[in-house]
């Protein structure tokens, strides 16, 4: 399968790209920059992963640059993983509109625009594809300082549910991974005490395993999950 993944340069996106390649899939990866690990992956698997430098704050060039010039009409896309995200955290009384708008572009507006063309691509190739958006446990269990970030992920959850309803008849599925806090760059701003406090709220008392999230995404992309759509799948060390 050909899978479009955003945010492949590090963290979960990079882990997911590796997992997909190991399972025999082709990755079309987007990220702003090329990390050394991504460089290594591209070097190891030049025929399995294609990479494009793209800044998701740019929603206007999605059609031309990503779909027309890079992927092209003739390549079917079987899955889309909306993984990249900005996490701007602060308490609400400090809300900065410029930062909020930037976060909404990267986390919501451009991924919605990409979804538009992913579905169009699936229609063109008669593909019963699978879309997976990454959400966060912060949507369901509030955390101080994450209200603005959580609001972008809540928007994706609503979008995914409605995508599933709208396109289910064509066999196109859409699901959400509600991820707990992982030990990635995304949570590097948290100090040890903050992390401990977060992990204490989980059943397993530890960080969410990046590989467990990646494997669940691969499952949702696969035909094994052909009857699963419109769902939020929590992979969060049991945050209850």
């Amino acid at each position, binding site marked *: 399968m050909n899978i479009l993944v955003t945010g492949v340069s590090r963290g979960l996106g990079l882990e997911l790209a590796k997992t997909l390649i190991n399972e025999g899939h082709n990755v079309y990866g987007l990220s702003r920059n090329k990390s050394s690990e991504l460089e290594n992956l591209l070097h190891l698997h030049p025929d399995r992963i294609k990479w494009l430098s793209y800044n998701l704050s740019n929603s206007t060039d999605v059609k031309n640059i990503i779909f027309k010039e890079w992927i092209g*009409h003739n390549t079917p896309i079987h899955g889309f993983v909306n993984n990249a995200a900005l996490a701007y955290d602060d308490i609400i009384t400090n809300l900065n509109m410029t930062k909020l708008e930037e976060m909404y572009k990267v986390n919501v507006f451009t991924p919605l625009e990409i979804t538009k063309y992913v*579905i*169009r*691509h699936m*229609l*063109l190739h*008669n593909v019963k594809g699978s879309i997976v958006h990454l959400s966060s446990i912060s949507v369901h269990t509030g955390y101080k300082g994450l209200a603005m970030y959580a609001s972008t992920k809540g928007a994706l959850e609503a979008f995914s549910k409605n995508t599933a309803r709208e*396109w289910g*008849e*064509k066999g196109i599925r859409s699901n959400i991974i509600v991820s707990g806090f992982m030990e990635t760059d995304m949570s590097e701003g948290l100090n040890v005490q903050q992390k401990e406090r977060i992990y204490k709220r989980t059943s397993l008392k530890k960080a969410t395993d990046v590989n467990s999230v990646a494997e669940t995404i691969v499952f949702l992309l696969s035909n094994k999950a052909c009857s699963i759509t419109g769902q939020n799948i929590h992979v969060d060390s049991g945050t209850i």
Partner: protein
Amino acid sequence: MEKIKEIINTVLANRGKAPITDINNDSHLRNDIGFDSLDLAELTVRLEAEFDIDIFEDGIVNTVGEIQTKLAPL
């Protein structure tokens, strides 16, 4: 017109609907051909792949004649 008819019939076939034999500029996409919104989306995509024009980009298209108009610059 033949290419448009061919694409319309592809979309109909993908939804398990019978093909049409005759179309003209007055043929209404919903009322005469029987397209719903999902079929219209697929029609748009297939026309764009063929002619590189998004017929729904700036408004609703109702008839085959209106598609011809959108594609007219070609």
